């Protein structure tokens, strides 16, 4: 009888599949967990369940057709992905776009970031176990979606950027709607803090969980809010300003603790910064052309091109090797989620299964972006 309680009892490691159809993996991602009881010893990421060969499809399409494919990478930052391709082609062809286009693109990008972070905040609460936040975040997100639907014509895959400008001019209600949104956000964002940020259960689930040091963050190539939670300064909007980011005043949100709670705080602060950026631009949208005429068939001069932008998840890069034909010889997307997911093993080792759900939520992965 002693043996059942004494030290002679041994535990053994076993494997558990988390996903590919698991609600907490935010898409079709399969995690192979090596467990001892509930303690995680190793995490293997298995990708490829939603591979659509978008990079290969780009080699078939012309540059104008490529733009709409990038909507389907990181669908929560669809507008910013479009912008990356458009900026790359405009840079390569030396097309100087008007100030109006730059300002419209910047406002739309920040609205996209707000909508993405609002969704993240709602889902974050839901992953931890608080269903209410989901409904509250979608209230604000619905306003942003309405703005997109009225001006761009779609709610998620906007495809609003075209090479040489934007597809339509701003709708007449745009400024009015954005101002109403900003007023509501200023009122509701403190409510977000009261609901989750100060909540003792929520903080116990995040503080000290999923720690990654600054050195490790750099070594793993983390980027975006995930790296800024570890104190790495990596905001592309600051390092390589594009569109109208060089003329607005904003603060890069950096926290140095390196745990899940720091990454949470980074995104909350980024929402405030996005509100601040839009406020500076919304009253002075310059007059001018909203779309420049381009050739019907665009051909890039032979060479290599790279464009980096800051999406809601981090450093999104588009690389093109052109041989002078109508479609690129090779197109490569550098997705922020891929590098961030790679550090999951480092973050989750020695923690419990429920903590993996919290960490996945704070690194904010979008699986179609990782798999492409």
């Amino acid at each position, binding site marked *: 009888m002693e043996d059942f309680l004494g030290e002679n009892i041994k535990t053994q490691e076993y494997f558990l599949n988390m996903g590919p159809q698991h609600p907490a993996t935010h898409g079709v991602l399969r995690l192979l967990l090596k467990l001892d009881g509930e303690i995680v010893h190793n995490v293997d990421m298995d990708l490829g369940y939603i591979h659509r060969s978008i990079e290969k499809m780009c080699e078939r399409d012309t540059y104008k057709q490529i733009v*709409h494919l990038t909507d389907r990478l990181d669908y929560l930052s669809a507008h910013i992905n479009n912008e990356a391709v458009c900026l790359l082609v405009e840079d390569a062809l030396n097309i100087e776009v008007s100030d109006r286009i730059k300002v419209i693109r910047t406002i739309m990008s920040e609205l996209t970031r707000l909508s993405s972070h609002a969704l993240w905040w709602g889902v974050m609460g839901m992953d931890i176990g608080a269903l209410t936040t989901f409904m509250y975040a979608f209230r604000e997100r619905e306003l942003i979606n309405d703005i997109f639907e009225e001006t761009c014509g779609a709610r998620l895959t906007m495809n609003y950027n075209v090479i040489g400008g934007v597809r339509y001019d701003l709708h007449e209600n745009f400024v009015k709607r954005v101002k109403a949104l900003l007023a509501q956000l200023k009122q509701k964002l403190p409510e977000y803090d009261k*609901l989750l940020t100060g*909540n003792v259960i929520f903080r116990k689930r995040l503080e000290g969980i999923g720690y990654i040091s600054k050195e490790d963050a750099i070594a793993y190539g983390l980027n975006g809010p995930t790296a800024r939670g570890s104190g790495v300064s990596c905001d592309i909007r600051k390092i390589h300003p594009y569109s109208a980011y060089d003329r607005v005043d904003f603060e890069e949100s950096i926290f140095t603790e390196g745990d899940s709670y720091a990454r949470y705080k980074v995104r909350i602060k980024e929402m405030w910064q996005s509100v601040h950026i839009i406020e500076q631009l919304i009253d002075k949208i310059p007059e001018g052309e909203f779309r420049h005429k381009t050739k019907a068939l665009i051909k890039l001069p032979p060479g290599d091109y790279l464009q980096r932008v800051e999406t809601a998840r981090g450093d999104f890069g588009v690389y093109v090797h052109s041989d002078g034909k109508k479609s690129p010889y090779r197109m490569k997307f550098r997705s922020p989620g891929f590098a961030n997911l790679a550090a999951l093993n480092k973050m989750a080792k020695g923690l419990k299964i429920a903590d993996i759900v919290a960490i996945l939520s704070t690194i904010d992965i979008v699986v179609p972006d990782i798999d492409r």
Partner: protein
Amino acid sequence: MSYFSDIIQGTKSLLTGMRITGNYFFKNFLTRKDVITQQYPDNKDTLKMFDRFRGEVTLAHNENNEHRCDACTTCEKTCPNGSLEVIWDKYKDPETGRNKRVLVKHIYHLEMCTMCGLCIEVCPTNALEWGQDFHHASYDRGQLTKVLNKPGSKVVAGLKG
């Protein structure tokens, strides 16, 4: 001592959150002021989409059942997914004696369309337009393949393409 202060602080933070949710609950229970949910299938008749909403690609017809498509197939060539198929026929123009194209069927594969809008942009005669209908769900893939030109429709007279 910290055991008790933890309990007090924890309870306080929970009550802060519950004050917000409780506030919304009772306010909306009585006045329904902040309720933004739409009762979707019930408001189907009154639901109006925005003008620019991209629901589907349509071929515009005027009141005489005439469209503006001269079967130049630019849309078919531009579509990245092969969602459009233009089937045309040749006929001899009696006035000039030259061969011209006439549209037989403008086939639209909605199941392949990504609503990128390139076909509408490139159309030289502005024949294609966005439709606002979004009720596309169906049990069978075949129902999503549509013929855009209405039966018996003709080209607008004097169309320059």
